[in-house]
């Protein structure tokens, strides 16, 4: 793996390299060099399978982090390629020419995060939301509760309880004494 990283480093500048498990690694690359890296990984290093492509909204940094998760069937290794892109008018090059099925992921990201992939087939079509008109809902600045209250009729009389407290109160009167597995947050 290290050799692989070296080889890639020889080509371009790797921003970060992180080993999660024996079979799970992450590298972070520049936005402009992503396509180069991916095609190298696919064509020369045997990472032929694109398992998924997902995004994380780093609202505070005003960035989206895209993760292209690749898999090598020969050495059975997962490799995540991370890219950070700007959050405003987010745009990323489409990789549907490398992996044809990537169009579906890109369409999803377009709908849920508002990341644009110019040239990706059918990217404008709705994916799970039909007729969505608001801000892409997976952006963290979208207030889903407010939206729900505004849009869907609330049935009056609904109350919410913290399950742990509620159960403690209602069902397990002697909660402290009851044997249980210790949880981290206690």
């Amino acid at each position, binding site marked *: 793996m290290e050799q692989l990283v070296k080889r890639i480093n020889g080509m371009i500048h790797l921003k970060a390299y992180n080993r999660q498990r024996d079979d799970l690694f992450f590298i972070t690359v520049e936005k402009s060099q992503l396509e180069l890296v991916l095609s190298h990984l696919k064509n020369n290093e045997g990472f032929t399978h694109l398992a998924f492509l997902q995004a994380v909204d780093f609202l505070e940094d005003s960035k989206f982090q895209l993760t292209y998760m690749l898999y090598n069937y020969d050495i059975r290794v997962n490799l995540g390629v991370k890219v950070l892109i700007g959050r405003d008018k987010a745009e990323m090059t489409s990789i549907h020419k490398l992996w044809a099925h990537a169009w579906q992921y890109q369409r999803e990201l377009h709908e849920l995060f508002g990341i644009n992939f110019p040239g990706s087939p059918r990217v404008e079509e709705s994916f799970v939301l039909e007729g969505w008109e608001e801000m892409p809902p997976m952006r963290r600045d979208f207030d889903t509760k407010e939206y729900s209250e505004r849009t869907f009729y*609330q049935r009056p009389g609904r109350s919410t309880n913290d399950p742990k407290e509620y159960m403690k109160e209602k069902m397990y009167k002697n909660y402290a004494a009851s044997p249980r597995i210790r949880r981290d947050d206690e």
Partner: protein
Amino acid sequence: MNRKHIDEIEKQMKLANEGLPEEERKFFADVIPTRVDPFNKYWEQFLNWARSRSLWMLAFGTGCGATELRPLMTSRFDMARFGIFPRPTPRQASVFVVGGYASIKTIKRIIRSYEQMQGPKYVIALGSCTINGGMYYDSYNTINRLDYYIPVDVYIAGCMPRPEALIAGFNRLKEKIVAGECEGMNEYTDKFDWFKKNQKEIIKDWNMPDYNW
């Protein structure tokens, strides 16, 4: 009354079907559904008795609720002994079982299926999600109250309700049917505009006829 007026009135008696593109409107019927009253009392009572003992169920497995229907059908709980049978097409079914949360995408299909059922038709809404949104009460994509979109006869609370609860719900429905209290199909036609308003409010890309015959 001149010709123009008649045309005007006829137009009002037709569904506008504005959600459909012009060239597709000819493929769909544009008749407004109307109320159909029950027969006279005793005859209707007899029919209701028969209906309550032969419930043909259209199971709409939207969410986790679909899981609970399997044991209900099979030998553990065996709903057939109550005269309840699954039916694969809405045209023939009389009970609509909405199996849990309904996203906007799903509610479209729920409306469509409900409208395609032939009355008298009954709706059983399954799980908390259909009552008030349940654990999805704050979701941007899931409705909170099913009865704003289609008339519901019986709610079964729970997350998820077990098959026993379902059977209890069915029995409650039977009681209501025999008592002649299940007039959901007429409620829907009577409050047609209200239901449609609610439906169209959340379904932004309304691309079906206003009533799915």
